[in-house]
């Protein structure tokens, strides 16, 4: 790699880094605004117009709070926990293709931190390291609530990682590549005559549902936020944390939401491709300018998709109640893993018999089952009426 490319890559990485932090900061604001909207409240509106300086005020508060370390805690592990959670969250965004190539002085430079052919494996590796941050922090606190929260988090994350890994395999079979850029580029072809709409969601609805569910569980978001469920565990693994160390844990969650939204958009919703992009490209001037304009439209579209999924996380948070722990584990192990394996087999069979949307058969099957079971008379579970 020559030095010009390396410098450009480094600049792109710093820009992506800054954008990641900015989006994570403003996700906290968006979370409170969305929550307020869904609950018919106003939300933060004191700091600046519409409260848009609220995240900065929060950051100042986080920095100036007392940094508390319990006397019985393992001091260095206690500090290492949130740092590790933050580090793993920040490292994952490197391989996400945020846009097509930029043409500059005859060279095509991909809008991506690192263009490597194992992109999705990199993300999986980094995300699965994230559990250490939670586990170390919860264990080092030497608090029973923290320990319970940390163990729940570890066990939940590793359980849902299996289903997540399996749901990706169907996509890999269809794309034949581990590179996120290749997967996105393959979705640029026309679908039903509309260019840039050949999204994997039309072939992999089951995989998408599994991946989305697992992404919620991996980010410890409601309805799977048992590691920090405040009604029974005070604060879960971050009970003892304060100041910026608590901030890191919360911040890492928002960065993970951003990264997982980006991965979902790239894998299933065409990444930076948008419907009718061939038509838009024909309108733009030819050459470097037109190419770069199209790339920037693609980047904007990609961020639009990411924002939709971040909103979706918040929407679900105020819609679904929390699962019970055995329900969570049963869903992960007894439903999602067998479903993901079935998805792989059906996808493989579909590819062999040249029928790519084969997994819709699973959707139809599940819907029919649900209708049949809903039509059956229910066993009533009414408690015995007392005769007193």
């Amino acid at each position: 790699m020559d030095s010009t490319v390396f410098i450009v890559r480094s600049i792109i990485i710093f820009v992506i880094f800054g954008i990641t932090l900015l989006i994570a900061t403003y996700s906290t604001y968006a979370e409170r605004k969305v929550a307020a909207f869904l609950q018919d409240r106003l939300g933060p509106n004191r700091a600046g117009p519409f409260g848009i300086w609220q995240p900065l005020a929060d950051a100042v508060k986080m920095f100036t709070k007392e940094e508390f370390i319990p006397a019985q805690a393992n001091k260095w592990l206690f500090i290492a926990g949130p740092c590790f959670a933050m580090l793993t969250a920040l490292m994952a965004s490197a391989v996400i293709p945020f846009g097509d190539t930029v043409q500059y002085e005859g060279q095509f430079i991909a809008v991506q931190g690192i263009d490597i052919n194992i992109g999705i494996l990199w993300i999986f590796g980094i995300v699965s390291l994230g559990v250490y941050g939670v586990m170390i922090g919860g264990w080092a606190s030497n608090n029973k609530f923290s320990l319970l929260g940390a163990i729940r988090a570890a066990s939940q994350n590793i359980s849902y990682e299996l289903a997540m890994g399996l749901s990706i395999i169907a996509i890999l079979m269809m794309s034949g590549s581990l590179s996120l850029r290749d997967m996105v580029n393959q979705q640029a072809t026309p679908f039903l005559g509309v260019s840039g709409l050949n999204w994997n969601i039309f072939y992999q609805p089951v995989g998408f549902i599994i991946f989305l569910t697992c992404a919620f569980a991996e980010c410890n978001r409601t309805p799977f936020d048992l590691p920090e469920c405040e009604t029974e565990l005070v604060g879960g693994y971050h009970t003892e944390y304060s100041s910026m160390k608590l901030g890191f844990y919360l911040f890492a969650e928002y960065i993970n939401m951003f990264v997982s939204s980006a991965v979902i958009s790239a894998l299933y919703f065409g990444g930076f491709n948008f419907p009718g992009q061939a038509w838009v490209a024909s309108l733009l001037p030819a050459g470097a300018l037109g190419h770069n304009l199209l790339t920037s439209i693609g980047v904007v579209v990609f961020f639009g998709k990411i924002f939709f999924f971040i909103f979706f996380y918040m929407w679900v948070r105020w819609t679904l109640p929390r699962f019970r722990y055995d329900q969570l584990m049963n869903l992960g192990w007894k439903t999602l893993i067998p479903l993901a394996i079935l998805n792989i087999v059906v996808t493989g069979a579909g590819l062999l018999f040249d029928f790519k949307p084969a997994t819709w058969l699973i959707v139809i099957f599940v819907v029919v089952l649900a209708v049949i079971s809903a039509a059956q008379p229910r066993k009533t579970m009414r408690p015995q009426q007392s005769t007193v």
Partner: protein
Amino acid sequence: MNTNYLPSDYLPIVVQLLAALGFIVGSMLVSHNIGPKRHSKKKDDPFECGIPTEGDARTPISVKYFLVAILFVLFDVEIIFLYPWAVNFLDWMKESREMAIAIFVEMILFMGLLLVGFYYIIRKGVLNWNQ
């Protein structure tokens, strides 16, 4: 598609690592230095909803969590076996259909064995959280 990757292509990862480390260490140092610090014996105890702390948190926990961890290791290794197979599936399809079908059947056998083990652990009640 670029298939020749040099170790130097991974160099930007080091840049990202340095940026992340710089951000983390920087904000940790700042928050360490500008926050107040007041200690007292009661305050430094682990939080236990206001009641006096009883023992510490280095207690044994349910073996279920350990079993889940062991099962994760087993299943994750098997999933990793599936990855190279899945990536090469289209290439085998292009080469010959018969070969692709043979390899597909082999993988179904592999996953069948996986599911037999899976059925066994479910019947053993490893994932039964109500007991």
